[in-house]
């Protein structure tokens, strides 16, 4: 009886301790829900199309008209009024999928796709925790060409005026300027229209420029254009060589997010770098959809620590074999990392197994 009550005490202790731990975490969730929290998502997923758990994706012929619905949610603990509208898909700086602002058009192939969607509401008021289905109709233009077009369904909250200084002058110091920001929050879900026909992947590296020069060194920006009719992601390298292209000074791996068809977009090279005064050549090699895009031999002259981009000075710097070596090195590097991880895991497993075996033997001897 005494033993039973001890074990019960242990169980109760564990339960109370865990609940206390949980209670310390709950305020984080409560804190976030104290602010407005809202979203939009598809109501159903299509079998075999995993992406439809997250966003709308349709394979449709030109001229198709059909109906669907989106679920709009208020996860917060106060009532909210949300604007809801269709937007054109566009690629933000640094890649990925983004959406135009209300009433604005994007510039790529998805320009005007917002007009393909007719929503049953333009504004929705939701009480705390409420969800509402918003039906919409999609009409694909009859004369549209093949390719992947992206629109979006966006919910937008009224702007918060967040800074306390807003609108308050400082009469004591007339030479002062004060600054405040309002924040508009939006949540968007993509609506992808895949129109059958020839799919073309094309990428042009348009430019390399100096985006920033500060204490961390030089940060470069690369301008890319998706010249095809499908979206894709791209990986590759930013290569800096000496002016004669005889010595590679540094290579930075690049991993760029989605670029929508027809979009021209800037990506920042993820690491800034410092170079000694001198003359260099900059090159970009990218791989996408089984193809490669190259921009090479862009001159850079650094004088007194200040880089200056000089335009293309040399071409045909790298042979196909040279480029192959860059990608092969990367693959070798990543497989080597996995080999190291696998090796360490094996040794750890061996150690734990050995310890268990040793502990078991010791127990048997004691018995």
């Amino acid at each position, binding site marked *: 009886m005494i033993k039973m009550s001890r074990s019960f005490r*242990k169980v109760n202790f*564990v*339960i109370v301790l865990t609940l206390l731990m949980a209670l310390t*975490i709950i305020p984080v969730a409560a804190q976030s829900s104290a602010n407005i929290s809202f979203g939009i998502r598809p109501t159903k997923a299509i079998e075999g199309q995993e992406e439809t758990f997250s966003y709308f994706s349709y394979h449709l012929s030109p001229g198709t008209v059909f109906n669907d619905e989106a679920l709009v*949610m208020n996860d917060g603990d106060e009532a909210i009024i949300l604007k809801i509208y269709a937007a054109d898909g566009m690629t933000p700086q640094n890649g990925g999928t983004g959406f135009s602002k209300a009433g604005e058009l994007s510039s790529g192939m998805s320009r005007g796709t917002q007009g393909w969607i007719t929503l049953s509401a333009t504004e929705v008021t939701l009480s705390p925790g409420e969800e509402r289905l918003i039906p919409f109709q999609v009409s694909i233009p009859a004369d549209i060409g093949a390719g992947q077009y992206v629109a979006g369904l966006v919910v937008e909250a009224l702007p918060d005026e967040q800074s*306390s200084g807003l609108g308050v002058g400082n009469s004591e110091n007339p030479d002062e300027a004060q600054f405040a920001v309002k*924040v508009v929050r939006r949540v968007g879900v993509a609506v992808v229209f895949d129109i059958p026909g020839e799919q073309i992947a094309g990428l042009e590296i348009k430019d390399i420029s100096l985006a920033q020069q500060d204490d961390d060194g030089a940060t470069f920006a690369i301008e890319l254009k998706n010249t095809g009719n499908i979206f894709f992601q791209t990986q590759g390298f930013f290569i800096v060589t000496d002016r004669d292209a005889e010595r590679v000074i540094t290579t930075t791996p690049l991993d760029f997010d989605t670029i929508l068809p027809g979009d021209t977009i800037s990506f920042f090279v993820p690491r800034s770098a410092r170079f000694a005064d001198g003359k260099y050549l900059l090159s970009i090699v990218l791989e996408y959809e089984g193809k490669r895009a190259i921009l090479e031999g862009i001159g850079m002259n650094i004088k007194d620590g200040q880089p200056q981009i000089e335009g293309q000075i040399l071409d045909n710097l790298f042979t196909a074999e040279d480029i192959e070596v860059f990608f092969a090195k990367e693959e070798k590097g990543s497989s080597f990392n996995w080999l190291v991880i696998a090796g360490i895991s094996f040794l750890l497993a061996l150690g734990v197994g050995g310890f268990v075996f040793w502990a078991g033997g010791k127990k048997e001897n004691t018995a």
Partner: protein
Amino acid sequence: MKEKRSVYLGILTAIFAASLFITHSAALSITTSAVSFPAVSLNGQDQVVLGSTSAWQADAAGESGGWNATISATNFTNGFGGSIYISNLEFRLADANITLVSGDPTLPSTSQANYASLSESALKFISAASGTGDGIYDFLPEFRLTVPAETYTGNYTSTLTITMSTGP
């Protein structure tokens, strides 16, 4: 032996109960905190001030298809014809400033670790690849404003648009 089993059962029950409290099926959402800048005494020189804000939060619990967040902004205007081009406002998010609140321990990554000028065009600053980012994450962005020498006095306001998106 039975006692041990009871203890283990208790632990499992408690962990399950705790997980019920922690997990939830939320809308993809982003919570921002106020961004404020110190007042600047104009002295005919360019001046740089740092913005201050507390942690923002991305709630992507239940979202495993990947997501991203972008920021764009308008020029600062004072309502009397004075303006400061938005390119004077810079933004960055260091990887070290992204932390897990709950969910997938693989943290989303920054897309803008170095300061970049803001513009009316969207700039992606944080993202999670497909199969990751199913969780709640806090992050602390940094703002830097250059107040040009020719700035007039007044109360300047800019509008930031923060968008959280799912898509290909």
